[in-house]
Each structure stands twice: as structure tokens, then as C-alpha cells.
């Protein structure tokens, strides 16, 4: 391995446009292989979990191993429904963005299980600090699609009052904290929220997500360090979808795994197959239970692949092979859960088709309804006077003056 250096080393991804996708370096443990420690196990004894990969669904679509959460079919079907709805919703919104109905959009394609499985493993009182890539949490908690759409098309019913770009949802009723664009800032905030639960002696947990790219921000370090020091009841997830816009994870990670970063702070640190609904559910449930018992934070690397462009502002064929997602060995979370449900005799193609149809109609109907409250181009928008609201709890004199200057 010794070699004289000649100039700066800059890592590159395994393949670029025009080349064949290459996942040959990937080591994928078999489903069921990773051991499941007791919820109150000693973090120092679990290091393996940070270098392995928790998987429950095997090649034959069966649930295997200690991590199988043994969910009933109803729960699994609900998960499938949410994931499917998310995908259909995403497709529709992205299409609408292309026709100018939204100023911007971002999909969860290929990562639907993250928000859905993890969200389902939690309680409604648990507080969510998502990134822009987990809108699916709202579906789990039953948010009305019309409200989500009204935000995305920036009309007068946008509960964020038109202050942010689409997909920057906020939903207090659902304990879904306002998303902000600066990546990573929510991660240590979640730790603070968790500390507040602990302070009051409540059993709830806080949970947050950042991307593989975002793990390089200082906020990442603050979160994991403070979480460890105060044993905050928080679940900290790095969703490693291998890309940060055009930047491959090889530029984000010097070596080891993202999960290994949790070890460094003495946290239980688990690497999990992010396209395996059951594995994600199980790991999250384990972490939540640990937190509720007062045993502190868990760090999770969710290993997945970003199936779509970063956002509608971006063209991934400029920086990665076109068919990379198709070559991705961990597959499609929806297909995998569907196959599992079929394998256990709880689902079939006909039901699936019917569900797709139902959800498609729901999305279309919801969108029609949403447009009744206004559109991006035509309005009605929130009234201009709202521009000056919510800067402070009460309007300050200089803002009153400015509002009057605008004549509203």
C-alpha cells in the first residue's frame, strides 16, 4: 500500500457517465446475519453493527433473523400503501413542476422506506426533525394531501404562508418541525428537543435525519456529541443515499462507514439496509425503546440510493451513470416489501393494481382541491401584509412602518 505521493489525492466515484455502474466494492452481509443486542445492551459491545448491515428480508423475500420485527400483515400493507402514495405523489408533483405549477420539487424515489418505516415505528408524540428528503413522515401521521400540496404550489392556504420553497413543509399538529434549507441544522436541534423531553421526565423521543453529504457539517458533530454527553432520547439518522447533489459519498467519507462515527462517541451505532422496510422498522423501534428507557441516543446509518435527481434543478446524467440506480443491489423498497407481502400470501398483483389506482385518484383529486385555494402563477397568495407577520411574535414599530410603506 506504500506509495510516494505526487500531488493531492482527490477521491472519485467508481463510475462516471459513459461508464458501467460499479458496485463491486460493496460488501453486503446476508439478511439475518447481524446480531440484535438487548435494548439495554452496552454500546461498547455493539461495534460490529456499525460495520455490518442489518437486513431482514432475504433473497426469497422472507423475513429472517433476530431483527425481524414480526409485524402483522395489516401494518405491512399500511407501510406499502404509504410508500406507494409517496411515490405517486412525488411523480405527480414533479410532473406539475415541469409544467410550471411548482417552483421547485424534490423526490424521495428509492428512499421511500426511510420516512415510512421509521415514521411508523414511532409514536405520534415523538418529535420529528426531518430533512427535505423525508416528507413521507407526514403521510404516516395522516396529513391531508391537500395541505401538503397547498404548500408546494405556494397558494394562500400554504400553512407556511409562502415563506419557503416547496417541500419545506411544517406541520406542528403532526410534530413535524419546519424544514429549512441549510442542511444539517435540524440534527442538533433534535438533540435539544430530546433533552427537553428528558428534562421533563417524558418518555417521548426526538428523531432527525441528515444525508451522507450533510454529515460533513459541524452540526452533525454537535448533534452526536451532545446526544452522547447528555444521553438524550434521540435517534440520529444519516441517510446515506451515496450522493449529495453531484458529490459521491467517496468525497464525504474518508474511510470506515458513516455508522462508525457513532461509535466514536460511545453510542450504539447501527448500519441498516435502507431499502428493507422491516429492517428499518426494527432498528428504529429498538432505538426508540432504548431512548424511552432512559438509555440515551442511537446513531443509525441508513444505507440506500438516491433514485432520482437531487431536485428539479439538477440533471444527474451529467455526473453518474444513467442506469446506476437499476444496478443498485439493494433494489427498490416498494418492490421488496410488495414481494414480501406476496411471499407470505398477503398481497397480489390485483390488489396492488387496485391500490395504485386508488392512490392515483386520491392524488389527482387532492390536487384539484388544492388548486381551488390558488396556484403558483395566478394566486391567490397569502395577502401582502403577511410579509410582515411572524418576524416577531408581535409587529415591531419599524416593521409596521415598512408595512405601511408597502401600503398593506
Amino acid at each position, binding site marked *: 500500500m506504500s506509495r510516494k505521493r505526487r500531488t493531492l489525492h482527490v477521491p472519485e466515484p467508481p463510475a462516471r457517465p459513459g461508464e458501467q455502474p460499479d458496485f463491486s466494492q460493496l460488501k453486503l452481509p446476508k439478511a439475518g446475519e447481524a446480531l440484535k443486542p438487548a435494548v439495554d445492551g452496552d454500546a461498547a459491545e455493539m461495534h460490529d453493527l456499525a460495520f455490518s448491515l442489518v437486513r431482514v428480508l432475504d433473497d426469497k423475500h422472507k423475513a429472517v433473523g433476530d431483527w425481524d420485527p414480526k409485524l402483522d400483515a395489516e401494518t405491512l400493507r399500511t407501510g406499502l400503501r404509504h410508500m406507494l402514495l409517496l411515490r405517486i405523489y412525488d411523480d405527480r408533483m414533479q410532473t406539475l413542476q415541469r409544467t410550471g405549477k411548482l417552483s421547485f420539487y424534490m423526490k424521495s424515489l428509492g428512499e421511500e422506506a426511510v420516512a415510512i418505516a421509521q415514521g411508523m415505528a414511532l409514536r405520534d408524540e415523538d*418529535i420529528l*426533525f426531518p430533512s427535505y428528503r423525508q416528507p413521507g413522515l407526514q403521510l404516516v401521521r395522516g396529513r391531508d394531501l391537500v395541505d401538503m400540496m397547498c404548500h408546494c404550489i405556494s397558494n394562500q392556504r*400554504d*400553512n*407556511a*404562508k409562502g*415563506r*419557503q420553497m416547496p417541500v*419545506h413543509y*411544517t*406541520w*406542528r399538529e403532526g410534530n413535524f*418541525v*419546519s424544514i*429549512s434549507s*441549510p442542511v444539517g*441544522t435540524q*440534527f*442538533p*436541534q*433534535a*438533540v*435539544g*428537543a*430530546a*433533552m*427537553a*423531553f428528558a*428534562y*421533563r421526565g417524558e418518555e417521548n423521543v*426526538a428523531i432527525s435525519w441528515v444525508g451522507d453529504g450533510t454529515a460533513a457539517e*459541524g*452540526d452533525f458533530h*454537535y*448533534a452526536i*456529541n*451532545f446526544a452522547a*454527553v447528555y444521553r438524550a432520547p434521540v435517534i440520529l439518522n444519516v441517510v446515506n443515499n451515496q450522493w449529495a447533489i453531484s458529490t459521491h459519498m467517496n468525497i464525504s467519507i474518508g474511510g470506515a462507514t458513516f455508522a462508525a462515527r457513532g461509535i466514536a462517541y460511545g453510542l450504539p451505532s447501527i448500519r441498516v439496509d435502507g431499502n428493507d422496510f422491516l429492517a428499518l422498522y426494527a432498528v428504529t423501534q429498538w432505538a426508540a425503546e432504548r431512548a424511552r428507557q432512559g438509555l440515551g441516543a442511537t446513531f443509525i446509518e441508513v444505507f440506500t440510493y438516491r433514485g432520482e435527481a437531487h431536485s428539479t434543478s439538477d440533471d444527474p446524467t451529467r455526473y453518474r451513470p444513467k442506469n446506476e440506480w437499476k444496478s443498485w443491489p439493494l433494489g427498490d423498497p416498494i418492490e421488496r416489501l410488495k414481494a414480501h407481502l406476496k411471499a407470505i400470501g398477503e398481497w397480489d398483483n390485483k390488489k396492488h393494481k387496485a391500490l395504485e389506482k386508488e392512490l392515483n385518484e386520491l392524488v389527482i383529486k387532492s390536487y384539484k382541491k388544492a388548486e381551488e385555494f390558488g396556484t403558483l402563477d395566478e394566486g391567490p397568495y397569502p395577502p401582502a401584509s403577511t410579509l410582515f*407577520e*411572524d*418576524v*416577531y*411574535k408581535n409587529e*415591531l*414599530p*419599524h416593521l409596521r412602518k415598512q408595512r405601511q410603506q408597502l401600503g398593506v
Partner: protein
Amino acid sequence: MAQMNIVQAVNSALDTLLERDENVVIFGEDVGYFGGVFRCTDGLQAKHGLHRVFDTPLSEGGIASIAIGMGINGLRPVAEIQFSDYIFPAFDQITNELAKLRYRSGGEYWAPVTFRTPCGGGIRGGHYHSQSPEVYFTHTPGLKVVVVSNPYDAKGLLTTAVEDDDPVIFFEPKRLYNGPFDGDHTAAAKKWDTHPGGEVPEDYYRIPLGEAKVVAPGDDVTLLAWGTMVHVAQAAAARSPTSCEVIDLRSLLPLDLEAIVASVQKTGRCVVVHEAPRTSGYGGELAAQIMEECFWQLEAPVERVTGWDTPYPHTLEWEYFPSQERVMEAIARTMENN
């Protein structure tokens, strides 16, 4: 009523707040067992418990962000930034997150966080223990900004700041902690017991944000100052042959524009004094607003006496620190235009 210095007044405010509201929590570097490098939280952990007054890792960004998360989740955090020179690692969390949270969420979320932080120079602290970064925060919509100048105000304003549901950056000029300082570093150090602001009620009271205070009435020139410079301005006013009205702004945002305008319309002249560098300091903003509001009354351009546009030096501190002499010269200059 008791005699207090600013350290004790801050401590008393925090003690009272901890008593009255179980959601108040206090944290920062060295604020717990030790009671803070300036001793402002002395005894509070022992009295109120480890979970209410505690030490944090050495991470201003971490402190700011957990404060926000706690604020979102129902607490009322009072975080200390050990020196205001060290607030910059938290700048993103403060300006992009804390300041904008209520707005961006359409009013759904907010975080009633107060940052206390010692500011300013005059203690031979050099480069990194002397800065006055207040103007950065006044340019960030969503924040309120307070700078105190005496123990009485410190307690009253801090109480209001903590109870405010908007985020407040609360500056405590460290040169004033133990006594008033008028810029004359050759004189013997004074204590607060010689100053009316050293009388502080032991009980709960509030001073509203956004109300300036005329600390010395006068007719010919208005002097605007905050923090340590209030004392420098007062001393300069006392020595000056000109009749000066000295106003302690106390809160920079909200700004008590009415009080300023009333005074400048009367005097027709104004000198703003601040310790921060001149360019884009808050003095520029004040000068601009005064011109806007009092253009026809102004007999001379608003003068600014400020720190130079250099980093804060150590050895040559007194060449940097805005002196009584410089204030007097500025007063005289405004009078020349007669």
C-alpha cells in the same frame, strides 16, 4: 433594594427566573458547577439543580442548536456564550435558524432563546476578548438585541429578554461587570455603589425592550450610546462646555426611534458613540435614520465616534478605545457648524 454589580444583577435575574418558571434552563461553557468565568451563574446550580444549570461541551454551535431544539420543545433556554468574540461558530444557527424559525414555519414554531454574552473591550483582552459584534445581529430580522450599561437595567432587561417569546441577543459589557467605566483607565477603578444603577431590587421586575433612557438631559447635542460607551459619553458630556443630552439606547432592536428623534429635533446635533469598528457599525444605521427623520432640524452631520476599522488590539488598546477626548472633539465639531 440591594447594592449589586452587574454580575450580581444578572445572577439575581437568573435566580428569580429559575424560581418563577420551571421551563427556564441555563447552560453554557463553565456556567454550571463553576458558575461561569465571570461568575454570573455562581451558586445557581447548587440551588436549582444539575439539570437546570449545567455545563456544556465547548461548542457554541452546539449550544445554540440545542437551545433552539429545547425552545421548540417547550423550554425557555438561557445560553451563555463565554465571550461575544466566540459567538461566530453559532452564527448560522442564530441567523439562519433561530431568527427565521417563526417566519419560515408560518408562525407554527418558535424558540424563546436568550443568549447572554460578555462583550466589549477595556480589559486588555486583545483581539479575541474585546469585540462588540452587536450590529451583525441587528441586521438579522427576527432577533432582538440588547446591550446593558448598569446593574439595574441588567436585571430588568434580562428578565424581560428571557420572558420574551422572541430570541434575544443580550450583551453584557465585561468592562462594566464590577463597576462603571468612563474610559479613563488611569483613574482608580470605581464600584457600582457610587452609581444610581447599582441599586437593584431583589425581587422580580421588568424593563421593556425598546425603551431608551435619557441618562443626562441637555439642549445642544444628543449623544447616543450603549454599553460601556454610555459612561464614556456621560463623562465627556460632563467635561464638555456644550449642553449634551445623553441617551442610553439599551435595546438596539427594537429601537426607541421616538426618543432619539425627540432629542435630536430639540438639539439639532448628534454624536453616536460605539466601540465596534466604524464601517457598517450600528452608528451608520442610526445616522441614516436620524437623517431620515430629522433632516431639516440637523445643524451638523451626525458624528460617529467608534472603534477603528481594525481588529481590536492589545497593547494599543487605549488608542483604539473611543475616549472621552474623541467624544468631546466630535461634540465640538458638531458645534462648529453653527
